[in-house]
């Protein structure tokens, strides 16, 4: 995880009577935001342009990578394992050091903002794992999603419950006790509570059954049709491209193919390498 772990082999960190590694963070919360600058004319709603960078002082993982999503659309990032899909997503969210490139949202250049200020700027992010507060109830999870809001959150909460009736029935239950699919629903619901202007999902269907996966895709389409742009990383490339307005195929941290989901499905090379014929 951190540099120290690599050096000391987590020595002394297994004694839970003196240390509590559960729920430990990886994002530096002490980093302060820099200034917000003017965006470029004619930008998409959200764009991470020519992003180059990696974690901490490590080697670059992304190389001149560009990801964008337009208003009311679904954009998906697909690619083989280790292609840097999640890393690209995290880069857009300010979780790694960009040595080159910029991130612009809704006419503003937010490259210098730290992740917590990007949330305030309107970005909602659902991580791939550890995306709920396990000891808190479903309702408290949603409340935490709405932490930055000062207005009445009850209507949004009802909307989330309408979208995910399965978790509505368990609103008083600890989120950690729910099934995998329900946890994902709580996770997406938590992000929606912020009323973001763009929703970013990192492999929302990882580890859930095919039936639950289809249901989640349906919900995501419903969210996007409701006007909220969705950017997501997906390992189920075929399903993802079917619902995508725009798809990005990444290979080794760089853009390999870009186009509408339909176009890429027709592309021979993409079919051969990623979609299995």
């Amino acid at each position, binding site marked *: *995880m*951190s*540099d*120290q*772990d690599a050096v*000391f082999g*987590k*020595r*002394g*960190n297994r*004694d*839970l*009577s*003196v*240390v*509590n*590694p*559960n*729920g*430990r*963070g*990886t*994002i*530096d*919360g*002490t*980093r302060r935001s820099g200034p917000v600058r003017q965006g470029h004319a004619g930008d998409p709603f959200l764009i991470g342009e020519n992003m180059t960078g990696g974690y901490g002082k490590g080697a670059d993982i992304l190389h001149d990578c560009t990801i964008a999503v337009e208003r009311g659309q679904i954009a998906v990032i697909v690619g083989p394992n280790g292609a840097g899909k999640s890393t690209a997503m995290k880069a857009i*969210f300010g979780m790694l050091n960009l040595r080159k490139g910029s991130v612009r949202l809704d006419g503003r250049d937010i490259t210098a903002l730290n*992740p*917590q200020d990007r*949330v*305030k700027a309107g970005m909602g*992010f659902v*991580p791939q794992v*550890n*995306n*709920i*507060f*396990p*000891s*808190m109830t479903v309702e*408290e999870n949603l*409340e*935490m*999603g709405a*932490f*930055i809001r000062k207005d009445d959150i009850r209507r949004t909460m009802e909307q989330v419950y309408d979208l995910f009736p399965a978790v509505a029935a368990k609103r008083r239950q600890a989120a950690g006790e729910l099934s995998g699919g329900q946890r994902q629903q709580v996770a997406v619901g*938590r*992000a929606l509570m*912020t009323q973001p202007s763009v929703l970013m999902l990192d492999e929302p269907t990882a580890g859930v059954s095919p039936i639950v996966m289809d249901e989640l895709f349906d919900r995501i389409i419903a969210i996007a049709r409701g006007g909220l742009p969705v950017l997501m990383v997906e390992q189920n490339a075929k399903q993802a491209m079917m619902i995508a307005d725009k798809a990005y195929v990444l290979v080794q941290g760089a853009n390999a193919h870009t186009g509408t989901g339909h176009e890429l499905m027709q592309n021979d090379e993409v079919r051969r390498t990623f979609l299995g014929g």
Partner: protein
Amino acid sequence: MDILNALVAFLNFVFIPAAAYGAQLALGALGVTLIYAILRFSNFAHGDTMAFGTAITILVTWGLQSLGISLGPLPTALLALPFGIAATALLVLGTDRAVYRFYRAQKAAPIIFVMASVGVMFVMNGLTRLLIGVDEQRFDDGARFIIAVRDFREWSGLVEGLALRSTQALTVVVTVIVCAALFWFLNRTKSGKAMRAYSDNEDLALLSGIDPERVVRLTWIIAAGLMTIAGVLYGLDKSFRPFNYFQILLPIFAAAIVGGLGNPVGAIAGGFLVAFSEVAVTYPWVKVAGYLFPDWQPGGLLQLLGTEYKFAVSFVILIVVLLFRPTGLFRGKSV
């Protein structure tokens, strides 16, 4: 058989002192468990920070006394307590800024925080001694007893006397109020829930727009309040000696671990469990036995351990719990 006298002797020598001591340990353990749950390390500087807060409170108490200000039957220290809490909060926030924040930014392993807190412990230790010296200080004033031995004997007609010191009653009352307030804060307020969220999942709390540094500051301020209150109550009940506050770290840790680290309810239960065991094991039961079994002539004092060995009780409880139920009585974070 004289059950009434036995009961009074038990209340007087075991129950009341243990309840007061348990309340003090519970407050201390709450602070330890809070820091463990949210800042993710066991704070070894806890005892010495308690001593610092108490020392400031004592100095302010003396100042108030010399100005002729008092609280009547209540100890003047209660009036000085807010100053002690404020000074301690400033000190721990300063420590966090100077020491822990650096490691937080590095995402250092939790064990490094533990070691840093040992260093902080030594600094606080010296700071308190520079401030008020190493000697014993008594600073309780106001009414000494709620129930005095002589009054109780006259009222009940029993041979055995019962004393309830005002500091003991005060300790329990203050602890109940503080615990209720803390639970209300953690479960009902937005900031309290944010602290629990941060404890559950740091990254996700940040992704929900919760400012992690604010949670950390809030935790230190609340911990400073708990530490100072626990320290002042302990000092009022017994007396203030900086070294005792270093030693009390062990029963406090035992209480927090027995209850389940990271679990506030467990910290309270653990505090009372450790206190009652300690008092029960070191109390000479010969008097109570004499009332219950008048014909029995025991050879000794029926004392399991000398009071010098009272810390052994904490150790034994700690080891037994870690061996057989490492998560503590109430499931803590250390699963």
